[in-house]
């Protein structure tokens, strides 16, 4: 675990956010032509509108939601998640914290809030996706610095590491099967070794991201869920302990790199 402390200490690292080189540059031309015109810009706008909208039985906005830096402080908050929250006595990621605020502040039914967190085919976006896009954008350029002071936060990292290497299912896949090696790719997609700082940084900093294949912004929690789907495992529940733990593992591995989300992905 000493590596982890060193990583957190090294806050001043400059990390290239460019795509990994494992695809041999065959997509460079494509990415250059795509430019920086990221449709996530619409979703960011919609996210701020959701934040300010009076919703739920209590008809209040999320403006007093505490994302870790105090009620209503959004700037820089995403970069310090996941973190321990004393009011719930839990380590929470953005999604579980948003659900907490929707339930506690707005008086909404947890089941409703959980019913459809992520877009399905044909959707233009969900409330969670939009909020995540806006909140992450409010951390642009801010160094990733998830909570690691509290014992609960460190335990969450250790759990995340165990989950990262946990092989199961008919294909014997773990996260590490695809994301535990340097310079490897699946088909033509660069994967990155997410156990290492540089690759974890370029991956973590760019989520949430607009996925051009799906036309929506996807969250880091969704990314975890979809990796488990491809591992042939059951469906990961948004904001669950395993989801938070894996995000903590990646965030700590990425610590120090500046956030650059929402990114633009295949």
């Amino acid at each position, binding site marked *: 675990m000493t590596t982890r402390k060193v990583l957190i200490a090294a806050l001043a690292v400059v990390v290239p956010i460019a795509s990994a080189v*494992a695809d041999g540059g065959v997509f460079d031309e494509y990415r250059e032509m795509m430019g920086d015109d990221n449709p996530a810009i619409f979703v960011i706008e919609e996210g701020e509108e959701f934040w300010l909208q009076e919703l739920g039985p209590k008809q209040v906005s999320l403006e007093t939601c505490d994302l870790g830096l105090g009620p209503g402080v959004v700037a820089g908050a995403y970069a310090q998640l996941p973190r321990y929250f004393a009011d719930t006595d839990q380590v929470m990621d953005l999604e579980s914290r948003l659900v907490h605020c929707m339930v506690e502040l707005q008086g909404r039914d947890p089941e409703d809030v959980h019913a459809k967190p992520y877009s399905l085919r044909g959707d233009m976006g969900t409330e969670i996706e939009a909020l995540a896009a806006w909140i992450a954008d409010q951390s642009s350029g801010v160094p990733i610095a998830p909570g690691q002071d509290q014992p609960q936060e460190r335990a969450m990292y250790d759990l995340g590491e165990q989950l990262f290497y946990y092989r*199961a299912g008919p294909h014997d896949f773990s996260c590490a099967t695809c994301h535990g090696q340097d310079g490897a790719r699946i088909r033509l997609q660069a994967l990155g070794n997410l156990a290492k700082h540089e690759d974890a940084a370029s991956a973590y900093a760019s989520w949430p991201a607009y996925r051009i294949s799906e036309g929506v912004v996807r969250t880091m929690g969704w990314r975890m869920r979809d990796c488990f789907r491809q591992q042939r495992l059951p469906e990961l529940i948004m904001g*669950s302990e395993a989801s938070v733990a894996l995000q903590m593992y990646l965030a700590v591995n990425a610590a120090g790199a500046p956030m650059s989300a929402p990114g633009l992905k295949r």
Partner: protein
Amino acid sequence: MTIMKIKWAGLLAVTLVPIMAVADQTYDVLSQSMRAKNSVSMDRLTQDSLQAYCSKPRDEANYSTAAAIRESRLAAIAMPADGVFVGDWRQGHDVANNGRGLQYSDDPSQPNGGNCYACHQLDPREVAYGTIGPSLTNYGARGQSDVMLRYTWTKIWDTHAYNVCSHMPRFGAQGILTEQQIKDVMAYLMDPDSPVNRPVEE
């Protein structure tokens, strides 16, 4: 030889105890963090002994027991019932390209894919190949002997019989592919007419 086996088995048991304790905790968290969906049930989270053994950072893995695992897995390989190892390379091409099967988003009535291209280069004309596994382009040139047929079949059936804790799925042992599909993939790899073994024309 028998003494050796007992010794290895003892080591295996000793090594697995602490691993299993951590794995139990990880399993508990996963089972509370997930829900069954469509054809994918929660029992997918339960590890077999091989999965538990291989659930460590690779550079920390203790391979003192690997020889015993290799031997036991080699002994369990089911060679083709009719003794014919090679099927139709055209069908094998489809299996190698198909990445679907056994995900909760997949239609269980459709055949599973082998998704070979996710990790291996095969037909040199296909640009979209992965690099987690070695290139298998021109695999047929490695020979068509009985030894080669059995070796290749074994690698596809249960790769851990040669390479413990390999990343590759156990396509036969875990029932991902049918015997016929494996024969077709064998043909795709070894048939001289298969594009895998045909050089790119200038």
